[in-house]
């Protein structure tokens, strides 16, 4: 088990490094002028221009620039924003908690909704319950996040006034209330897929030999469903859920917009527009690290669930 986890961690580091090269190259192939971003388009003298180029190491070769960036990044310094003249880490630190909280809350909400729905549909396969729930989740996945966000906000914030319609709270508990609607909107987009995967895998497991054997030895239905089948159906569910949670970090930008929350997505988009290299690189690298961490956690959960992976 220890060796398995160690192997995954080494793998994760290598993937992050490889991704960092890719990020660096891709930012640089976009046709744009970083100096213009720093000066916000104002006319500057040739000397100022050269000074800026030197200050940000833009005169060095690209491999050298990469090495400077990655060395600093490992030390926790992602450089300064061209545009805002602030350290990128400060920019991220201001915005990340909101985004992470939305992602975490919507993941939990999505799992709490989709797994029971999936299991219920599987157990009552092809019944009215199954059909109704499948249709509802399908409608939810078909409607874009910003639309669900607006509709939820209209009903629960404007009309019923149960939740605030925009902004974030000051304390953690207050935040839970502020971020509930945005998280729910984001969660709805995940529910359908996870519920479907849960349903189809549960159906397969419910028809498996060991499920029949468990019934044949007198196990109550609840034990057969939850102890035997659900645990076996879980691995594909976790795989899909983890990918969705990963993409949600980016998807959060939409709800952040609707509910005026100012998360990390906002900054990323605006910095891409203005060729703010350090910010784009810093945030993208952070997203890669988050993705890799989610994957690592998922790999550990796999091993914990399945002895065949643990004892490989």
């Amino acid at each position, binding site marked *: 088990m220890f060796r398995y986890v160690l192997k995954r961690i080494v793998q994760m580091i290598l993937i992050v490094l490889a991704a960092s090269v890719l990020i660096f190259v891709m930012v640089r192939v976009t046709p744009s002028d970083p100096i213009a971003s720093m000066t916000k388009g104002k006319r500057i003298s040739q000397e100022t221009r050269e000074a800026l180029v030197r200050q940000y190491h833009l005169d060095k070769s690209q491999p050298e620039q990469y090495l400077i960036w990655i060395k600093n990044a490992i030390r926790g310094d992602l450089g300064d924003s061209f545009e805002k003249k602030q350290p990128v880490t400060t920019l991220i630190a201001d915005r990340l908690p909101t985004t992470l909280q939305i992602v975490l809350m919507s993941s939990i909400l999505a799992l709490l909704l989709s797994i029971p729905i999936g299991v219920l549909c599987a157990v009552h396969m092809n019944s009215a319950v199954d059909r109704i729930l499948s249709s509802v989740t399908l409608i939810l996945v078909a409607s874009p996040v910003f639309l669900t966000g607006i509709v939820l906000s209209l009903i629960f914030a404007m009309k019923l006034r149960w939740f605030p319609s925009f902004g974030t709270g000051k304390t953690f508990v207050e935040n839970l209330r502020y971020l509930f609607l945005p998280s729910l909107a984001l969660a709805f987009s995940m529910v359908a897929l996870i519920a479907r995967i849960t349903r189809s895998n549960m159906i397969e497991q419910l028809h*498996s030999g*060991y499920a*029949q*054997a468990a*019934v044949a*030895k*007198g*196990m109550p239905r609840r034990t057969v469903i939850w102890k035997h089948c659900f645990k*076996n159906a879980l691995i594909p569910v976790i795989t899909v859920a983890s990918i969705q949670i990963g993409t949600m970090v980016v998807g959060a930008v939409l709800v952040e917009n609707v509910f005026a929350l100012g998360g990390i997505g906002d900054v990323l988009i605006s910095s891409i527009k203005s060729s703010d290299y350090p910010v784009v690189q810093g945030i993208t690298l952070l997203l890669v690290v988050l993705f890799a961490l989610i994957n690592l956690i998922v790999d550990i959960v796999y091993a914990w*669930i399945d002895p065949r992976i643990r004892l490989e």
Partner: protein
Amino acid sequence: MAEHSLLSIKDLRVDLMSIRGIVYALDGVNLELGEGLIHGLVGESGCGKSMTARSILRLHDGKRSRMSGEILFEGKNLLSLSEREMQDVRGKQISMIFQDPMNSLNPLYTIGEQISETVRRHEKCGKTAAKARTLQLLGKVGINPPDRRYRQYPFELSGGLQQRVMIAMASACRPKLLIADEPTTALDVTIQAHVLELIHSLSGEMGMSVLLITHNFGIVAEVCDRVSVMYAGRIVETADTRDIFRHPAHPYTKALIESIPKAGTGEEYLPTIPGTPPELFERDPGCPYRDRCPRAGEACKVRPMDERIVTAKELATEQLQGIEAGHTVACWQAAQAR
């Protein structure tokens, strides 16, 4: 034949709802199982052997099947029990092992947990007591050393050991009846004999009846006391094992026995039965075997099967000598056939 029967199936019919229509999978099965006996159930694929076995434990999907008839187990009709009552019968009074032991074990739990779970369910005992019982069971079915094996997962065991685990699980609560659905089909030939021997010895030791489903007459000859032959959802012949090999009365049974490969006879061709079994989309009022039967006559088309179940005693008064009592055959031509 036993004085009184442990299990008595009367006119069991199972209809399955399929995409292509209703399948009359079992069409009036009658079967008596004596106490402490190993009763073989033979027939080709799709004839309803497993269907019969699964019906006894009511493992069918209730939404896609309907059952009628009676399955009397120690006098009570299993078909009229509630699902909750049935759960107490399964695994405690009647248990079952399946063809593929790998698929019958949950890959995510240790074999120890899977056996002791059964013990805890039926014996209402604590974890420690259940574990002690499980270790004892593992030793009994020849899985050594029990304490190390207890912590192993199904994928760490060979097919033969997996089937032994299933047998330990099935016999955990000393059931009156063990249903073994092709228990050796998925195993290596060398292992088959060991597993059969284990079932045989447990049956003797615990006075447990066994319904052994197989398509292999060789297995029947080795371990069964009695045997029933199934064809197209019906039982066509039932007799003591020795009797059926000596005096097969039904043309289908005869053909089956003739198609057992015999070593060292120098015969080049293995006799086979021409044709295929009928599809069961319609209720057939006649004998289901008549299309493949060399002796089929007009009578076979119209006469309902049930009238043609002839006991050996009745047959003996005519011209059949040497057939013992308790030999039933569902064939109108059986008398003339000899």
